[in-house]
Each structure stands twice: as C-alpha cells, then as structure tokens.
C-alpha cells in the first residue's frame, strides 16, 4: 500500500481536513485495483495512514460486495442474475458457466485462471443477458458466445 501514498495525498487535498474517513472508499478501491484484493496488511496500513479506526474499514469492506479480502482468478467472470437478464436466460447461462469452468459461483478454477461470480444488475438491461469479464461488458450473451469468449482468455 505504501507506494500508493502519493496518490492518496492528492486525494486528501480534495477533502476538507477532518474528513479522513471519507477517503476510506476511494483508497480501498485503489488498493484493490493495484493488488487485486485488499490484504489484511492493507487494512492495518490504511487505518494507520488515515487515522481511522480499523473497524470502520472492515465495515466498508464487508458492506460492498465488490471488495475482496482474498485473491481471485486472473479473469473475473461476473454474470448478472437480475430480472432482465434472468428473463433473457441468465440462469441457463450461469449453469453453462458452471459446467464449462467446473466451479460454482464464488469459486476459482484450480488453475487460477477464472473466478465465477453472480452479481446484481450491471445496468445494461437493454442488452441482457450480460456477463462482465474483468472490466469489459459482454452483451446479449448466449452459450455459444460464452464458449468463444472463454476460449480467447488465457
């Protein structure tokens, strides 16, 4: 986390003094972007850096499911299972992903390549069903398109 401190300093300048706890979320996002997850040492480091009680950081981490406390696979496959996607076959897609990857949602393949997750609305209902792989949206998905997509990922 230490090497991110100059960035955090720039963030800090955007908040009035005494609002250090407002920096918890942006700092945690940056840490996760950098490391892939938030390690225990990051929490301790951030608590010390911001002077915020550790429990407040733990609360934020557990409130937002987007935060991870453990490393995940190289490719994070997130399948939406909200209303629009479900009506357009998301549950079948998720079943297909389970079979193809051999893992249940929340699990990582033994080779560390894929982590499968189910998520709530990704905000792309017009092109349901949607699957997100790392930062990219893949819209109007079918089993065939999934197979092609996975084949192209190392």
């Amino acid at each position: 986390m230490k090497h991110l401190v100059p960035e955090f300093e720039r963030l800090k300048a955007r908040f009035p003094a005494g609002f250090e706890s407002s920096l918890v979320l942006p700092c945690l996002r940056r840490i996760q972007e950098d490391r892939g997850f938030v390690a225990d040492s990051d929490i301790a480091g951030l608590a010390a850096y911001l002077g915020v009680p550790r429990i407040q950081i733990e609360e934020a981490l557990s409130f937002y499911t987007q935060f991870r406390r453990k490393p995940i696979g190289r490719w994070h496959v997130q399948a939406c299972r909200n209303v629009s996607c479900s009506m357009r076959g998301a549950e079948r897609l998720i079943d297909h992903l389970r079979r193809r990857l051999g893992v249940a949602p929340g699990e990582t393949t033994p080779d560390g390549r894929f982590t499968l997750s189910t998520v709530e609305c990704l905000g792309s209902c017009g092109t349901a069903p949607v699957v997100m792989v790392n930062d990219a949206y893949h819209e109007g998905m079918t089993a065939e398109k999934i197979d092609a997509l996975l084949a192209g990922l190392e």
Partner: protein
Amino acid sequence: MPEIFIDGRAVQAEKDQTVLQAALANGIFIPYFCWHPQLSVAGNCRICVVEVEAKGGSWLDISCNMPVSEGMRVRTDSEEVRAQRKAILQFITLNHPVDCGICDKAGECTLQDYHYAYNGAPSISHDPKVRATKFFDLSRRILLDNERCILCSRCVRFTREISKSHALGIEDRGDHSLVRPAEDGCFDDDPYSDNVIDLCPVGALLAKSFLYKARVWYLRPTPSVCPGCERGCAVNLWHRRPEWQLNALDPRQNTAIARVTPRENPAVNGPWICNKGRDLAAIFERARAEQAMLKGAPVGLAEAIAAARRLIEAARHPVALVSNWGSNEELAAFKRSLAGRFSAAFVKIDRQPDPGERLEDDFLIKRDKNPNTAGARALFDDAPAALPAATDLVLVWGEGGDFARLPAGAKTILLGSYLAPENGHADVFIPVSIQTERRGSYTNFAGVVSTFEPCFAKKPAVADAEALFAQLGAEERVPA
C-alpha cells in the same frame, strides 16, 4: 422554555430537548430501543414513534430525533401510533428467534416487555427466519447471539463514544448485518467492554460469567459500592433472593454474587462501571478466615478478643495500622473507641494494583486500588516509612500489612477477613466481616460519600469491626 403539548397535557421542555427527552422528563413514557440518554441518536429502531398534530394534518415521526418547538402537539398513544408500533415490533421480531425460554435476558428484556405491552401478536410473516451465528465470541468475556440482535447499534456507539476503543462495528448489510469486533482484537483490551451487556436491549450480548447461571427474577440487586479503586462506583450486587433459596444443588449458590451491574450515580460513575467492577466476586469470594487464633491455635472469638485487650493494655508503645477498606463508620468507631489506647494510628494501603491491571485513565479507573483512602486519611495520618523502633505492639487491620518490616519483637494483633499465611503467625488473629456482610459508606477520591448495604449474613464466628473496636476499647472488661 418552550411549552409543548403531549397527549393534550402542557409540558415545559428545555430548549435543546427532543420530544422523547421532554416526555420522559415529565413522566410520560415513550418506548425506545436504540436511543440511550448517554449515546448519540441513531434513530434506527423507530419504536419511539409519535404522532405530530398540525393544522394541515398529522404525521408520524420518531420522537428521539425530533427537537421540541413552541406550541407543538404530539400524541404518544393515538390509534395510528399504536398501529405503527405494532407494525414496527413485527419488523423487529421478523428474524428474532423468540427463544425467551432459554435466554438469559428474559425477565429484564426490553423487547419482551414491549412485545407484551404494544404487540402481543405472533409473527405474521410466512418466510423462514434468517439464521445467523450464535455463541459468537465477541471477546473473552462476552458472547454474541446474532439471531437475537435487533441491530440497534447501542454497543457500537458505546465503543465509539464512551469507551473510545472503536472496537465494534456492524458488518455486511441488510438482514445479513452482524455486529462484529475489529479483527485486531482490541475489544478484549477495552476495560469497559461489559457495559455493552447492560446496554443491549435484547439477549444478544451475554456475559460468559453469567451464562445460564440464574433467572434474573430469582435474584435481588443489593446497592453497593465497588471497592476496586478510589472512584467508588455505585454498583448492584445480584444474589439469590432469600425467598428463592436453593435447597438442592450447592448451598454456596445462596450466598454467592451472581453478577455485578452498574447503579447509576451521576456524581461518580454515570451509568457505567469497568470490567474489574464486574469481577468483584473474585475479590469477595476468596477463601474466608472464619476462625479466631492465638499464634495459630484455634480459640473462640471471645477468648481472642480478651487476649487482644490484654496485649493492648500491656503494651507501652502500641501502634495501629487501619484499613483503607474499612467503612467510614468503622474508621470512626476505631477513632472513637480505640485510637486513644494507641501511641499512633496510621492509614495502611491494603491493596496494590494487580500485575497487568490498568492503573489509571481519564474515564473511571483511578490509580489507588482501595475504596476508602480518603475516608481513612480524614481521620488518620499516612504511615511513615518505618514504624518507631520502640513499638512493642502492632494492630494490623486488613490486608497488605508487611509483617517482615514490623519492629523486631513487637507483638501483633491481626484483624483479617481472608485466609492468609500471616494469620497463623499473629499473636492474636480475629476474623472480621467483609463489605457484603455489613452496612457502611466509603468516601471516594473526590469526597463523594456512597453507602453500601449488606447482601449476606455474617457468620457468628466472624466479628463486626465496628462492634469489635468498642469491645477492645472499653474501659471495663467486657464479659466474654
């Protein structure tokens, strides 16, 4: 002073009060779970809902977060309020297991009381209840039952606003929310942690030391004063009610301290005490000395008293070391009846801090770990580094006397309450009662006098110090 109308009654409120505070101050009860007079307003339980009447119509809102304003009219018991409370209780008990039959809190549970007072109906939900962790170790001292928790956040606010350990938080969200301690274990280091057990309005936070010990309605709280330090916090000592004595099981349970809780005293401790105050049983329930002795040989109490009188009469330079665990009444009796027979009487410091014990902080805990040093110092001088060499008799009252450092050849009279090796070495040993067996008062570091009441009867073989001093000091030989 704004005047407001609660249920049609004109009430004088303070300018910065909320409707809930104004109502309670004027004897009008509004139920509350999450609100607490010493904590910030969370406003999450909603049970303190009232109806605000205005020209354009009326509306429902929570009274804990509603500042008073001149002429405002609220109703605490209208049809709408009653219906709303009932609905709120349905929500609060949505995932509550209603396991009062096996819950330690039953009998003093706010949720239980409110359910009978304001709802009384079984759950109308068809959905299965959310399952959560039970018997979760919140700390070494406290168990958490997350299914019983109603997420009022009182415990969380306590650690942030009062004890300042910032050790608790609410993790996850929605109906999966869980009260959790910070992962670095700082809740174990919070010397005030057990206050969250009293704060909990339901049976979610439980003292491990009291778990399944007793139904609270079989217990009686006796007002007492914590002797753990010179703060002298007001406490209640809970023990078996005499009318509910156990005839089976271990009879010692009838004379045991089941638990200790704070007794509110704004002049000393507010509504809080530290964890040491919860563990007074560890101090009071040490093995007791109940046998008078002459150089270790058991004798009757009267015989020991007569021997002590003879020693005092024969001594030319007797010195007394009085206990700073003695009550003001006992110290005054000593001064009145006995001090004149001694060349000097000094205050002895009975107890030193235990290893690892927190010495002092800016909240309640004080450095002197004795309850009545101020009261003793008001009557007697501090002990010098060494007693005069001519001293030929030392009366040691209480613990902490250093027998190795007494003048050589001096006779000793020891008044003690607990079994200790030195009891058998004293020329005369007289067992005396402890705080839980008598009435009295202590003067704390700030000069506040607090009184304590007896919980248990003194055994006949044990002397009461106040009466003992009169006997020892009487001019005429008292009949044995």
